[in-house]
């Protein structure tokens, strides 16, 4: 009898003085996280207070931030990139996520046939490398190369320099990115919808709700945590987007900075410098990324609070 009672307490030994054995399981992951994510991020914030590159850094306090927000050229680029990134994000929220929801609702419909096939087709673009998608679409949108083909099928009105015009370049690139990533929200919403109990849907059916009412009053509220999570993921990944711009336009955000996103702005200041000089200013780059980090935090935290934890 007494031995059973004794076994309930955690065994104390040399490796486990306080009984908190779980620390040893967490330690490797915590170490990796601190070394490769937390430390670089904090160091980046520290670097934003310096000017110059490795071996020749001088402390300048907040001068980089002052320059970022008040220097006419730099601040024009920053706010331009900021505005463009919001446009990019709007396309993703309003087109990609709405389409994702629509596809998910259609795919989880009881009477849907060939669901596996359509799910695969919708998800395949996500598996293509972003650079490949970017270059392929750049060729398709090129009036000189796609022109003859389009004209021969009567689509001549589509032959325009889409990526060369300031008005259309960002919209087109956003739509290409939406095409590529629509599979992810679809997949997550499908998983979320499949988690909705059949009883609720049957009850709605019996009560005489049509499909729109079923969606709006039952499915959507129960999906809200997933919507919140997807909104946050979209928000963060759009503010980091760089590869699609590099593939379809130049890292300058040609034409005339209209496709310049925060990601490509950071690349120009923090990594590669401006052509043809090509020498970066890591201090300003770090200032850009720190400023954007705080802006993202201001967006993510309220969204998390508003959408998670609702039963």
């Amino acid at each position: 009898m007494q031995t059973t009672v004794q076994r309930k307490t955690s065994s104390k030994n040399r490796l486990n003085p306080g009984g908190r054995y779980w620390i040893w399981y967490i330690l490797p992951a915590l170490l990796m996280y601190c070394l490769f994510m937390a430390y670089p991020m904090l160091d980046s914030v520290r670097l934003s207070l310096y000017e110059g590159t490795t071996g020749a850094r001088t402390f300048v306090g907040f001068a980089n931030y002052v320059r970022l927000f008040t220097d006419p050229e730099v601040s024009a680029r920053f706010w331009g990139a900021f505005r463009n990134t919001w446009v990019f994000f709007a396309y993703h929220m309003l087109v990609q996520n709405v389409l994702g929801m629509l596809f998910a609702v259609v795919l989880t419909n009881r009477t849907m046939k060939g669901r596996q096939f359509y799910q695969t087709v919708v998800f395949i673009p996500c598996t293509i490398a972003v650079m490949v998608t970017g270059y392929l679409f750049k060729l398709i949108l090129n009036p000189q190369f796609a022109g003859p083909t389009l004209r021969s099928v009567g689509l001549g009105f589509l032959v325009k320099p889409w990526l060369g015009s300031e008005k259309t370049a960002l919209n087109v690139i956003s739509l290409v990115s939406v095409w590529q990533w629509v599979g992810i929200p679809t997949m997550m919403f499908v998983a979320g919808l499949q988690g909705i109990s059949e009883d609720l849907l049957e009850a709605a059916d019996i009560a005489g709700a049509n499909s729109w009412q079923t969606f709006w009053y039952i499915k959507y509220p129960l999906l809200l945590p997933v919507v919140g999570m997807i909104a946050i993921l979209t928000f963060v990944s759009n503010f980091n987007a760089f590869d699609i711009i590099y593939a379809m336009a130049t890292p300058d955000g040609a034409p005339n900075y209209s496709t310049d996103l925060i990601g490509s702005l950071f690349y120009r200041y923090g990594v590669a410098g401006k052509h043809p000089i090509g020498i970066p200013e890591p201090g300003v780059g770090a200032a850009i990324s720190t400023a954007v980090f705080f802006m993202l935090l201001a967006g993510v935290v309220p969204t998390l609070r508003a959408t998670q934890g609702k039963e």
Partner: protein
Amino acid sequence: MRKLTALLLAVLMMAGLLPALTQAETVKLTMGSWRSDDAEKVQALLDKYKELTGVEIAFQPTVSDQYNATLRLQLDNGTGPDLYYSRSYAVGQELFDAGFSMDCTDIPGVKENFPESALDAWQTPDGKVFAVPFAAVSQVIYYNKTLFAENGLEVPTTFEELIAVSKAFKEKGIEPFANGIASNWDILECVYLGMLPNYVGGADQRALYESGEKKMNDEAFLKSLQDFAELAQYLPEGFESLTNSDGPAMLGLGRSAMFIDGSWTCGTFADYGVEWGAIAFPAPEGAAPAMCFHPDMGITGNNATKYPEEVKAFLTWLATPEGAQTTSTYLPQGFFPMIDAPITFADPAVTEILALNDGKVLDARFVWAKLLNMYTPMVEQLNALTKGETTPEAVAEVFAAEQAKIVGQ
């Protein structure tokens, strides 16, 4: 079991040490560059050098537009290559001033075997040479010989003839030029800076603009901008989204008659089987013809290299006429050695392009030496001018204002 594990570990550690022991015998240098397109050819050159001297050099290029930043990062961190390509003028000088590039002034042959115009690109104001001149490129107009012959048109020799020919091609439904503005650099570097020496003159005239004596809104510049605007009317449909890599394809496939680019592209037309030729950018009627012959690549050593003797030996070899002749055999087509000695090329087309220099005033790209801060404003203005959003007069005023900012007047 424990003894076996210990034995295994000991054997593995010995195996790990072995390469380090054998490496001590052969000297292996690394060379950095932005010409990832030429990897095969340059490695062949370096293998030839190994045959001659036994020193092995590995060619490690990076993507062109990331070279400056990558090299800087490597040099800052002490992991830079032993030898590397040096950009000309201010960009390359910056690395010398920062202490990374070797001082090449005392390398035998550097001061003697190269003309002043070549050394100027890799020389500091107080006469120190920071790289051995390696290759220059010229700005040319490629043209499709077959299309010209089929349509009975003569190759133009003046700017007015160029416009007439463009008009004729356009009427026949063939795009006169394959140039666009989407790459954001070729409209300036290849087109405008290629034609500018015809209007402004050579290095001595350029110096007057760099000192502020002549303004960039004077007659010469205004005429150049007006002619550029006229030329821009013959850019192809959808030029706003055409990149520099689309040009050779368009010329090769017969969609356009001409393509304004640099001599470095001349090797790519072989893929299309097109009969191509090259002309210098024609000057307006009555003006002295000039050519943009731009010192593009120099090679210099890393001050922090572990093998300074071998590095200096390679640089000395480059500065000899024999070394230059060997490099010209292996240099990719369209890159010309700048040594002051007769060089023969295997490919007659390449010799033809170099021969375009004869009898013309030669100069580097106008903004490279001292006016590099004009690069971005110039690209922006030229883009606007091609789209018809501004006038040559307004652009000239912007140029003059930017020049005043740099020159400090």
